């Protein structure tokens, strides 16, 4: 085992230049960190765009940008956040870092494919960014690329589509890798009933990645072909049907929201038992509900199309299925809360973020029910109510879980601890700023303010001003959080191998983990939440 002060897998080798040592590494931990850095960078880019959007919306009429710029801004904000941050986020970064460690494997099943995934992701991101400065200017379609607008706008949509296609490919390869890894590389004794819940959630996610992403791929290809040679498959003038595009798009993009949330739920399921010092309540139900969400979630895409001109029969079916998919989410929430019962709860930063997740995700999910109901969705569809809903689930849900994961696992990865007090303050500011930002958005949506509106009527101003002010509070909190984490990772006190006294396998290793994490597969003797066994394999 490694000696004190060892930098583990972070240790530079002297064989080749440092940079190459990283960007061509096939070690899952290094690839995980590559993802973490790139995902983090795009998050900051997306966030900056979000702040600009809010600034524009602080008052009716032109404020800081032209209408065309605004349209490009929210398109880019959506594309960056969805495809570059939230979808690859938790699986790419923490999945890669922790999945093999948690199941006691030496690495993922296909390490080189793993590196290829990251490179494809970077290539796609690079193309997405290039699309801003080349061709007919930044894409202005919204992240949904609805036809016929997207097939005729002169902006540089084709390149953005190609970028999305490539990033999708990267996502598929990650999925293939994870499913294979979980099936084949579990350490002896790590049977399915002992898989950490984070692994279960990644397993369910990976299946969605494998089976739904290709549909997005073909949709992007069709749209590109449409733009290049005008096949007319979605063009009503040539016998095509624009609504079919929406079906194809959402066949992927609804399941994609579960690609975003399932790993986040996995993180929360890891953290809550550790900080409540109690085994998860209803391990089996949580594991099964991950799979159920993945399966049922693939069948509800039509709820994005209630006012699209789709048939009423389809509305009936999709509305019913949408309501059903809420059930496994409810089961998870109840199980998390029940885990707290009679525990010994300590409110350290990871736990604070996890608890905030439960609250904010519940708000987001419950507003999802309003959207899933056909009658009410007619009113709030394409308003800021929807914008509020999805920021609650994506940022309040996945975003907060991502922050929780940072606070939970970074001490493992870097071997150093951040400042707890600063982290707690940052959490509080973020929590307040978040609600200040997005709650008014939902209200203004209920009053009828449509989304993707550069300019709005004066009666909507008050709530918009509050939201914009909230974005500044949120910005301050995020800044504090990142600075604190950064300083902690550079100069913090040594964290020790198991600062939280958790029982999953990654905590058995030193912090940072050695380059050869489990060269001998460990013999696993207990479940992931047998906290008395913490520190033993």
């Amino acid at each position, binding site marked *: 085992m490694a000696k004190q002060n060892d930098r583990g897998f972070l240790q530079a080798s002297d064989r080749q230049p440092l940079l190459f040592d990283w960007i061509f590494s096939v070690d899952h931990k290094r690839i995980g960190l590559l993802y973490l850095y790139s995902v983090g960078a795009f998050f900051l880019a997306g966030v900056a765009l979000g702040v600009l959007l809010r600034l524009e919306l602080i008052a009716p009429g032109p404020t800081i940008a032209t209408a065309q710029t605004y349209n490009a801004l929210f398109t880019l904000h959506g594309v960056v956040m969805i495809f570059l941050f939230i979808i690859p986020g938790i699986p790419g970064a923490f999945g890669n870092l922790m999945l093999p460690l948690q199941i006691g494997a030496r690495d993922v*099943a*296909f390490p080189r494919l793993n590196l290829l995934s990251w490179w494809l992701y970077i290539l796609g991101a690079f193309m997405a960014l290039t699309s801003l400065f080349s061709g007919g200017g930044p894409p202005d379609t919204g992240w949904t690329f609805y036809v016929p607008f997207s097939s005729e706008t002169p902006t540089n949509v084709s390149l953005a589509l190609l970028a999305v296609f490539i990033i999708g490919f990267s996502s598929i390869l990650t999925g293939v890798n994870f499913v294979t890894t979980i099936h084949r590389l579990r350490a002896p004794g790590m049977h399915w009933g002992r898989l950490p819940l984070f692994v279960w959630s990644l397993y369910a996610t990976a299946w969605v990645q494998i*089976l739904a992403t*290709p549909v997005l791929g*073909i949709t992007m290809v069709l749209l590109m072909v449409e733009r290049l040679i005008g*096949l007319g*498959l979605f063009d009503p003038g040539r*016998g095509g049907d624009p609504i*079919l595009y929406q079906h194809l798009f959402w066949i992927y993009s609804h399941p994609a929201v579960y690609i975003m949330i399932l790993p986040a739920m996995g993180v929360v399921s890891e953290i809550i038992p550790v900080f409540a010092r109690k085994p998860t309540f209803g391990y089996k139900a949580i594991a099964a509900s991950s799979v159920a969400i993945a399966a049922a979630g693939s069948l509800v895409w039509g709820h994005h199309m209630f006012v699209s001109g789709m048939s009423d029969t389809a509305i009936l079916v999709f509305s019913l299925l949408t309501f059903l998919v809420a059930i496994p989410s409810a089961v998870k929430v109840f199980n998390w809360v029940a885990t707290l019962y009679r525990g010994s709860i300590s409110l350290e930063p990871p736990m604070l973020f996890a608890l905030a997740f439960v609250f904010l995700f519940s708000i987001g999910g419950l507003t999802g029910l309003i959207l899933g109901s056909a009658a009410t969705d007619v009113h709030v569809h394409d308003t800021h109510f929807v914008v509020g809903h999805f920021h609650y689930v994506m940022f309040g849900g996945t975003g907060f879980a991502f922050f929780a994961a940072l606070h939970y696992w970074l001490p493992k990865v870097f071997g150093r601890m951040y400042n707890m007090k600063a982290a707690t303050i940052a959490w509080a500011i973020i929590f307040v700023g978040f609600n200040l930002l997005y709650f008014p958005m939902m209200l203004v949506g209920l009053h009828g303010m449509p989304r993707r509106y550069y300019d709005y009527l004066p009666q909507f101003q008050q709530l918009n001003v509050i939201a914009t002010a909230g974005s500044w509070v949120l910005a301050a909190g995020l800044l504090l959080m990142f600075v604190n984490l950064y300083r902690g990772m550079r100069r913090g006190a040594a964290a020790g191998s198991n600062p939280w006294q958790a029982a999953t396998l990654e905590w058995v290793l030193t912090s940072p983990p050695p380059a050869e994490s489990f060269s001998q597969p460990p013999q696993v003797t207990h479940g992931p939440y047998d906290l008395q066994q913490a520190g033993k394999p």
Partner: protein
Amino acid sequence: MTMQRDATAARLGMWLFLFSELLLFGGLFLLYAVYLARYPADFVAGGRQLDLLLGTGNTILLITSSLTVALALSALQQGRRRLCLGLLCATVLASLLFLVNKGVEWQAKFDHGLFPGGARLEETAPGQKVFFGLYFVTTGLHGLHVLIGAALLLWILGLVGSGRVTEQDPVMLENGALYWHLVDLIWIFIFPLYYLLL
């Protein structure tokens, strides 16, 4: 870092990837199904204009190439490396023939103005435009897969030749063959759906 050599894992990974490919074409089959339901007569009229002979020829070619690659794998496993190489050559050859046929077929369509923007197609009913639109993307995407598959097999042929894929370690060939069979599988559906509509 050494790769973990696990044939079962490699094969599982390949199958998962093939599922992905299946769903990729699945999107096109979805469009096909919807538009067939909407424009049955136009689809039949469109199908009549495809070359049944070339289509059937290509079907036979692909099925045969599927056989040769399966035989190549068996040959390698039985230690008959020379035979394996020959069979792989045959497979690659068949794939090239397939592509030539496809090219001839597409060329004929272009000559007749049956392409998006072409004179003949522009005059026809909307349903036929959709049919030919789908025909071109579907066969185009499939052709691309044939090309990729052929390149893959060619590479594996090199590996078998240089002794890096062997009787003991045939995983690469197994996976290459799996990919090739998928290409065949997709065609097995494309053929009746496009060429045999009457």
